[in-house]
């Protein structure tokens, strides 16, 4: 429930950013550079005097984007691969799973770092890099679920009456592997936001003028000892949002898998 509330607020802030932001998030005011929180600027000003609160509000919009688009890439590629590997098995399964093993040889965000480093910085490249790293998660998850669902009697019955393979996957298998996909997607959005922020922090994210939380942290790092607020608030925003999606994922898992409620 807490997760749902946090995620709800985050999405609302992202969508309503232009109406919620008290100032123009791009307007620099060098006279106010690095000033701490005040009545006029609740969260203070950044290194070139832009209003931190307004930038954080617009940052929610970008984070929403870098959370959703990469996960969509992961879903669009990973889920069909998992369905095909699990359903058909044999050589196709072996080839797909070896490809996934190769991607998983790059731990954590290393694959995203490599892709972003060679593709170059930019919002699109960032989303592609993070999106590609989420493919293996979905493929493995969906393959596992498909393997168990395809043993069910209703699938065997459908096969016995001659339902074509792809129709069977679409109508009988896919709806029954949807629950773990939904749960994983919430956790995956959290992971994508964290990865995107990490790439932003390493200078591999969006252009510096965009209000992306990780990039804001990277820019504020120079003033860490003189203007604490510049690095504190963007990190807090990332942590809270990621916590919200993680809580939502945990809650969804408990709701969709009653066995876990006892544990």
């Amino acid at each position: 429930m807490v997760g749902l509330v946090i995620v709800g607020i985050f999405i609302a802030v992202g969508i309503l950013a232009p109406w919620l932001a008290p100032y123009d998030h791009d307007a620099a005011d060098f006279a106010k550079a690095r000033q701490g929180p005040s009545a006029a600027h609740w969260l203070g000003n950044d290194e070139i005097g832009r209003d931190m609160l307004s930038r954080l509000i617009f940052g929610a919009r970008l984070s929403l984007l870098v959370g959703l688009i990469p996960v969509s890439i992961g879903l669009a590629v990973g889920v069909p691969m998992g369905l095909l590997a699990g359903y058909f098995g044999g050589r196709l399964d072996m080839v797909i799973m070896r490809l996934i093993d190769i991607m998983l040889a790059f731990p954590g965000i290393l694959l995203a770092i490599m892709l972003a480093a060679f593709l170059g910085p930019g919002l699109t490249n960032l989303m592609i890099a993070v999106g590609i790293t989420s493919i293996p998660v979905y493929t493995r998850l969906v393959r596992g679920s498909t393997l168990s669902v395809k043993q069910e009697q209703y699938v065997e019955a459908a096969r016995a009456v001659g339902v074509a393979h792809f129709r069977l996957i679409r109508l009988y298998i896919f709806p029954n592997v949807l629950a773990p996909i939904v749960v994983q997607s919430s956790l995956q959005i959290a992971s994508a936001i964290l990865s995107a922020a990490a790439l932003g922090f390493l200078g591999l994210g969006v252009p510096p003028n965009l209000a992306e939380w990780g990039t804001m942290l990277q820019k504020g790092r120079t003033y860490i000892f003189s203007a604490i607020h510049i690095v504190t608030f963007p990190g807090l925003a990332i942590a809270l949002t990621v916590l919200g999606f993680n809580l939502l994922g945990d809650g969804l898992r408990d709701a969709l898998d009653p066995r876990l409620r006892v544990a």
Partner: protein
Amino acid sequence: MTAYVIRRIFMVFPVLLGASFLVFISLRLVPGDPAMAIAGELATPALIAQVRQDMGLDKPLATQYVIYLGKVLRGDLGRSIKSHLPVTQEILARLPNTILLACTSLALAALIGILLGIAAAVRPYSWIDGGSMTLALSGVSMPVFWLGLMLMILFAVLLPRWFGLERSIFPPTGSGTWKHLVLPTVTLAANSMAILARMTRTTMLEVLRQDYVRTGRAKGLAERTVIWRHALRNALIPVVTIMGLQFGILLSGAVLTETVFAWPGIGRLLVDAISYRDYPVVQGVILFIAVGFTFVNLVVDIFYAYLDPRIHYA
């Protein structure tokens, strides 16, 4: 067991081949001429032509890969554009620092994570459980680099200000003494600690419901003996596997932590190389970490099969 180990070892080769191909092909993602990317933007046309010839860039892609693989197998990862030193030498010079940081972080994460997990599982739904799991969830959700920056602010700005100290108890950047290791270790350990705490809680809860635990209690064993000697040993089997995998993940997490604390390891080498567009170093470090991670996984899987005989019969 032997058959399983041999089969598992053979599975490593296609993964390593594929990973090396991904690293090799990644240079082709760079817009423009790969020879210029390798030689550096300031390289003369003659040098670019030399690089093109050395790397066989005028040859078919498959031939280029074979040349690349042959060099990698001989330990030749190319030369750094920035320092002109062999990339292997650059990596090996910094590797001990990264391994030291990963080891101390894993030790801290295991100690605190497992203790938190046990405390939570022994009293499920109590305030201890709630507190431990909230801490664990925060650890999973917090950006590693932000935690590092917050610790720097706490130890280098706030604590000296509050207690009138001249300098920070733990230096916020650099290396050389054990004190330099404290803040990076805590930062890098946070995420793994959270994962290990959650994992230990789940497996302990499962084990505590087993018949042999009930038997132990029924025959009058002290609760401490039941938990520490009977339940924990079995609950730790999957936790040990996760710990092994965490070691590899810590190697990549070190990229961010080392950047925050200016720790001279391979993670920082990678980030410096990215900002300098020192592509041979970027490729070398990434391949090195991927190969290291694959071997750590191999050892963990074999160790797991040794601990749990059901694995190699499956």
